[in-house]
């Protein structure tokens, strides 16, 4: 029982078919439950007031935004090495999800920043790195859309994902370097490393789980669509040949 069995499109469709309702249910429970818990049942922060409630969306979106790119990197490598179409299609399916999460991270970061820093946008290293990641997502999606032949598109986008990962990583450190002198101590560093007290941490982890499960749900759904699209293209090509 190896994971490579799911590289077979038919097996993937079968398994994802029965898995999808369960993951969807779990995602809804965690996401709605977590957000409800955080929004209604947690106190305000003495420093940030009620804006601390934005953490329940901002942090999970930010974490997932980066993680999705990493997943795309892994699936791209699998495509290049083992030529499993499901892997390439999963990367293609994941990109818009990652872009949306990154966008949410940016928007919530900016909105959070407004009352805290008095400005709608601040070139905080973290926000800036996210902006750049968003641009990488856009380029990746655009390249898939521009190339006609699916296998060529899969190859080119995989190479782009790999090279892009290196540059995204470099940009993260370049941006930290770039912004060293500014906004010290004012950054929105409320990730798990800082001492977020338990009353916030529990609903936060629930929301992170919710976002993660939402990603799994959507990527399964979207990959199924891509697999169907590929099958349809094959059938149409055969139709044209036999006509």
């Amino acid at each position, binding site marked *: 029982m190896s994971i490579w069995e799911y590289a077979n499109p038919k097996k993937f469709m079968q398994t994802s078919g029965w898995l999808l309702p369960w993951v969807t249910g779990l995602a809804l429970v965690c996401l709605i439950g977590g957000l409800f818990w955080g929004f209604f049942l947690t106190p305000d922060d003495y420093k940030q007031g009620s804006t601390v409630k934005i953490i329940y969306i901002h942090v999970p979106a930010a974490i997932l935004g980066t993680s999705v790119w990493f997943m795309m990197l892994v699936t791209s490598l699998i495509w290049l090495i083992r030529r499993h179409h499901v892997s390439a299609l999963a990367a293609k399916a994941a990109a818009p999800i990652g872009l949306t999460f990154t966008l949410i991270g940016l928007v919530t970061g900016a909105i959070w920043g407004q009352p805290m820093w008095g400005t709608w946008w601040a070139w905080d290293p973290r926000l800036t790195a996210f902006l750049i990641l968003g*641009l990488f997502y856009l380029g990746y999606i655009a390249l898939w859309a*521009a*190339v006609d032949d699916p296998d060529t598109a899969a190859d080119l986008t995989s*190479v782009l994902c790999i*090279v892009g990962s290196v*540059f995204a990583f470099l940009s993260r450190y*370049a*941006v930290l370097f*770039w912004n060293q002198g500014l906004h010290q101590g004012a950054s929105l560093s409320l990730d798990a490393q800082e001492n977020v007290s338990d009353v916030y941490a529990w609903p936060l982890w629930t929301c992170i789980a919710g976002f993660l499960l939402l990603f799994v749900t959507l990527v399964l759904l979207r990959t199924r669509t891509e697999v169907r699209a590929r099958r349809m293209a094959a059938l149409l090509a055969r139709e044209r040949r036999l006509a």
Partner: protein
Amino acid sequence: MRALFLRDLTLAVRAGGGFGLGLAFFLLVAVLVPLGVGPDAATLGRIAPGVLWVGALLACLLSLDRLFALDFEDGSLDLLATAPLPLEGVVMAKALAHWVVTGLPLVLAAPVLGVVLNLAPGGYLWLVVSLLVGTPALSVIGAFGAALTVGLKRGGLLMSLLVLPMYVPTLIFGAEVVRRGAGGLDFGGALVFLGAITLGALALLPFAAAAAIRVNLR
């Protein structure tokens, strides 16, 4: 490889080759920014490193889509791919030609434009040094972007979308070197990172670009 390099150089310099286009664009940027931002000398001096670097970036982009596209269209890229010279070598030779035709003139023109933008006196040397170290990265990263989009009609805009985010680290460190050099601060770290990025890109991207070309030639 030398023959290919010289051929690309000659093609670029001849009429219709686009030589000087990048330089002209660089000049335009240096003229338009003060017009847009206002003539206040202090402001211009502060933003000069960044403006010059962004101008260099955009000027490099201009000539990138001809890097492989022309050869792709007339079939020479197929010939180059099957020639004894490895495709990675082809990429290097073309990127080098691009740099000589686009990057190097920028390095030479930059100090003049620095005057126009009121660059602080201490910054001129570091402007030239940072561009010298950084522009080869721009050429080779650009070659990778061009290789990805070579088969596409109107791939130029998409190529810019792909390449510009990859230019960000070079831009940040390059501009930092100039800014810190101009301000008398320590720029060593920035210069080291800039150089490292260039060397890394030169070492690894030809392979990625060659892979992309092979995919597109299938």
